[in-house]
């Protein structure tokens, strides 16, 4: 018995030695690990969207890591859960900059979390590519390490206003927001632009309420606006629109990309079919996006949530830049990677992306989508109502 065990151990050891052998020789960089971190809410009410960011990144790493692996690097994903809370995001960020193997962060979902967390990344010049943060301040601080592949609130608001005044031709609108950096930001931009276009704003309010919207809906119904806008996230927007509809509000509903999740119809049901939302996330209609959707579904058993595709694109850009800075087997540094990311020209499923001097895509596409069915499985089949390509505004000095 013992002798067989020893023999098998020796055999195992030999096999291991053989397996490890190629790693011993070759360029100096071999055997080094490059970690790509994600930060997004993996628990809580927005976990569906946050999970999409993690899985999109995971798929991106698996798809694009080949060249880096050939150069002798191991590429790993380290997902962090920021719980959609700024304090959690910041404390995660401190752990992230302490882990020297982490070269880039893909995240966050919430602008309110991304802004304070990126202050921490900046301490060590750790590059961040955001798939989803549309607040102006994310890039307007002009940090060399902060980039995003999506559009901006100060443009998303006007896109909604353009659609409401130009296409829907409404004369009156009511605007509600969730009092977050994101929701209030986009709602204010929307309201200001709509007023400039001559639409009358019959009410502008904020609320943190999550269940009982009765007292807010009653005055809306009495004022009878043609359009109700909600600046915020689907877990509040869906019950609000649902209760408004049930209470007899006849207005059309519009919101920003915070509504862009299949959970929106899961919560709102039939009452929210027909709602419009503006988004910087490309609809899944292009051939590339379809292929991504299929691969995603095959691997994870569910349809990609919005921003999964953007995370995939952000990962592709990060890896392209990593290939650049590791040429010749060099070990990458965070600073070098940061400036390499700014130079990447990438053409993917969300269009061509090239960053300007503050980290915004030079030209971003914005879409107005309409919810067509109350079946959450068919969220990706929502109809595109309008498409606009708008350049990011220059940095305010």
């Amino acid at each position, binding site marked *: 018995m013992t002798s067989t065990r020893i023999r098998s151990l020796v055999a195992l050891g030999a096999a291991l030695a053989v397996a490890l052998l190629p790693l011993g020789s070759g360029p100096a960089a071999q055997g080094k690990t490059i970690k790509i971190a994600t930060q997004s809410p993996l*628990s809580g009410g927005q*976990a569906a969207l946050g999970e999409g960011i993690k899985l999109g990144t995971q798929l991106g790493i698996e798809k694009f890591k080949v060249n880096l692996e050939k150069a002798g690097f191991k590429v790993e994903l380290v997902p962090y859960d920021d719980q959609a809370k700024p304090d959690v995001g910041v404390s995660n960020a401190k752990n992230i900059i302490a882990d020297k193997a982490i070269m880039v962060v893909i995240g966050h979902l919430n602008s309110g979390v991304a802004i304070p967390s990126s202050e921490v990344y900046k301490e060590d010049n750790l590059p961040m590519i955001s798939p989803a943060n549309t607040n102006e301040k994310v890039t307007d601080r002009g940090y060399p390490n902060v980039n995003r592949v999506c559009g901006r609130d100060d443009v998303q608001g006007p896109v909604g206003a353009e659609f409401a005044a130009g296409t829907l031709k409404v004369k009156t609108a009511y605007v509600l927001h969730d009092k977050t950096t994101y929701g209030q930001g986009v709602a204010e931009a929307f309201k200001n632009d709509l007023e400039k276009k001559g639409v009358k704003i019959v009410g502008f309010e*904020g609320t943190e*309420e*999550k*269940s009982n919207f009765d*007292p807010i809906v*009653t005055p809306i*119904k009495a004022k009878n606006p043609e359009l109700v806008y909600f600046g915020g996230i689907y877990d509040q927007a869906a019950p609000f629109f649902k209760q408004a509809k*049930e209470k007899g509000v006849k207005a059309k509903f519009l919101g920003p990309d915070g509504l862009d999740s299949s959970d929106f119809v899961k919560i709102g049901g039939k009452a929210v079919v027909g709602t419009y939302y503006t988004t910087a996330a490309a609809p899944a209609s292009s051939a590339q996006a379809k292929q991504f959707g299929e691969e995603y579904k095959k691997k994870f058993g569910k349809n990609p949530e919005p921003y999964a595709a953007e995370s995939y694109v952000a990962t592709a850009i990060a890896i392209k830049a990593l290939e650049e800075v590791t040429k010749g087997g060099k070990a990458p540094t965070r600073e070098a990677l940061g400036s390499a990311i700014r130079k990447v020209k990438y053409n993917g499923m969300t269009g061509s992306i090239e960053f300007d001097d503050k980290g915004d895509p030079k030209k971003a596409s914005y879409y107005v989508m309409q919810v067509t069915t109350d079946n959450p499985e068919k969220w990706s089949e929502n109809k595109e109502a309008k498409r606009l390509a708008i350049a990011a505004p220059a940095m305010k000095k």
Partner: protein
Amino acid sequence: MDFELLVRIFPQVLLDGLLLGFMYALIALGYTMVYGVLEFINFAHSEIFIVGAFVGVELLLGLKSRGVLDTAPWPLVLLGVMLAGMLASGALAVTIERVAYRPLRAAPRLIPLISAIGMSFFLQDVIRLTESLWRNAFNLVYPTLEPLNERFELTSTLDVSAKSLVVIVAALLMLWGLHALVNRTKIGTAIRAVAEDQAAASLMGIDVNRIISLTFLIGGAMGGAAGVLFGVQYGLINPYTGFIPGLKAFTAAVLGGIGNIPGAMLGGIVLGLLEAFAASYMSLLTGGAFGAEYKDIFAFSVLILILIFRPKGLLGEVVRERA
């Protein structure tokens, strides 16, 4: 300021406020009954309340997946679901008392309070864990009972949905039942005796532990029923939904005079009305300067004012002052 609009929406806001008030009143009973017998705040009551809502949604989803939700008569379904919610929440409250409060009964008042806060956090995350393992979901949506969605238009600006009526009627029935139980039955007398003086009550042959368990059972069951009604009315729950209504209901109990059952009902209704009127009228009255987001600030400012002039709450003088 649009005065005509203020008048026009008045009845609807009143109704919204009453509805919310009855909800708070039902939850507030749990706080006030426990305070009455033990003189401490059961902070886990907000989770006892939401457990009722979760049991309700699970049952309704179960019925729906078996396809009987639309064929079964809705009053029967609702009654069954409410009973189940009451049973679950009542049993949970009794268990919590047995596990987390009874061993600490001789300790200073702050100790069971801390135990209650811990229990509250513990339960929130147990619900979250169970639901994410069981359904992989955080937000749960109450399946709609179609007949309950019907709306009755009373005037052009006042309409009421069937479910709101059901909530109000159910709340009234339960409040009346509880009042009768406490004031007209032997058990009620025992509960009041224990609240008055535990030592004397036990000398009179009352099993104090059993009465305390019973108080938790009744308070918890009311909370569970409120949970189901909350789900039916507002449609969306998550493991942390209970916290805010719980806090408001606790406030309502203090407003009415903690330890006092009619006080809790009155406090709930006053708070519900204050909140509804603040949320609907603030922005109209201030020309948009203060919006619905200030409703809690307004409601709680009024509350502070009331408590300055009546420190023991609206009906507080009924309760005897104890150290």
